[in-house]
């Protein structure tokens, strides 16, 4: 069968890195996306401007360039902050900014912009009458958000969310460029060492397709859950 020439365990470890990275960046992206959507819908012009600037700039620049910028520039930025903390407040802490952090932050930051657009559309699709009804019941705006706007928004957001996730998953391959040993990097190293690219790169490609199909089921299940009461 497939002879991985001893690279098997490292490839599986790499797959673990890919999945961890993808899930953590997804969480960050969803969080940033919700903030962005709320900021874009707010009446406060400043919040609105900031959110628009964020989504426009992020979606106009290649993810690899942002990743390299954050990876090479991140430590300098972090050092500047800890220097400032030391100089002004006498707090002595050191953050190290590694490739994993750079990867999660960049991918989360990029997809936060895309998620923001998805969530904004979904929030606007929620029936206004429902929100008014919630207010009429005396719910606070936080409670209206939690019980009425958020659950119904998710129903509209899930298809877009699932699309974004598929793109995000493939984007994680880029972290191999900044030195993180995800499965793409292991496969590329193995290809160069053994001169047998197909043996390593094709299984990794299949692994991406597999992860995508498994998560597609999860999204289909979620879709069903959030669509309860609506039917086809």
């Amino acid at each position, binding site marked *: 069968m497939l002879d991985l020439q001893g690279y098997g365990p490292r490839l599986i470890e790499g797959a673990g890195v890919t999945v961890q990275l993808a899930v953590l960046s997804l969480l960050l992206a969803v969080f940033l996306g919700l903030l962005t959507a709320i900021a874009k819908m707010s009446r406060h012009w400043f919040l609105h401007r900031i959110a628009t600037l964020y989504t426009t700039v992020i979606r106009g620049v290649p993810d*690899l360039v942002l990743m390299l910028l954050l990876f090479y520039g991140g430590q300098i930025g972090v050092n500047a902050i800890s220097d400032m903390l030391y100089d002004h407040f006498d707090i002595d802490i050191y953050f190290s900014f590694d490739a994993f952090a750079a990867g999660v932050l960049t991918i989360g930051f990029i997809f936060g912009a895309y998620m923001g657009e998805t969530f904004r559309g979904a929030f606007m699709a929620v029936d206004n009458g429902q929100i008014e009804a919630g207010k009429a019941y005396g719910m606070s705006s936080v409670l209206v958000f939690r019980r009425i706007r958020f659950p119904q928004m998710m129903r509209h957001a899930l298809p877009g969310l699932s699309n974004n996730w*598929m793109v995000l998953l493939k984007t994680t391959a880029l972290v191999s460029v900044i030195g993180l040993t995800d499965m793409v990097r292991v*496969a590329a190293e193995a290809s160069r060492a053994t001169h047998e690219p197909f043996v390593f*790169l094709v299984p990794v490609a299949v692994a991406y397709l597999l992860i995508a199909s498994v998560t597609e089921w999860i999204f289909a299940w979620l879709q069903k859950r959030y669509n309860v009461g609506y039917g086809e």
Partner: protein
Amino acid sequence: MVDVNAWLNDLLAGNKIFTPATMAHYWEGLVTTTQLVFVSLIIGLVLAVPLAIMRSSKRKWISLPVYAYTYVFRGTPLLIQLYIIYYGVVFFDGIQESFLWPIFREAFYPALIAFTLNTAAYTTEIFRGAIKATSKGEIEAARAYGMSESLLMRRIVIPSAFRRALPAYGNEVIFMLHASAIASVVTLMDLTGAARYVYSRFYTPFEPFLFVALIYLCLTFAILFFFRFLEKRLLAHLPSQSA
């Protein structure tokens, strides 16, 4: 030319990073990026039209192979596709002895092939969606006029599908521009490659990467406005277009 050089030297005298030499690198990078993106988009478009027609065929043995192709190329990272082609091209029998070898030894053509196959897969699916959305009435009307299947395709389905596909295709063009940044991974001196080179010489991350980010941003806006303009021209007859 001498005047331009003197002017550039004056302009750039205040810093170490934006010198005429590095500007030449950026320019070279811009040319490579533009070539890669433009050529792969054109070939991808030419491939995608027949593939989309095959993909929307009712006969399974025609549509399934195309579906398999688009599924694989849309479901896996472009970086993997690039690596497979870049490292795998050596394994075609006799390519190292053939006249093609000087071409394929360079990273440019493997990158071009990977980008072309990738964009062709996405464009095929965009067109398929557009072909599927053709209104039934138009097709029935064409049949009632006695048009053959190929005439119906050529005169009715394809032209309107092109128009419907335009907004999604504009996104694909922008996506391709951004995806082309990974060409720098296989040693190509594209825009991102130029920035990485300048970074490795001066060890200042902010200037080179922010500078190319700005160039990409400008290119993105140029593409965006070009497609807005096209949409306004070509979709003017459609209702519900925001002016």
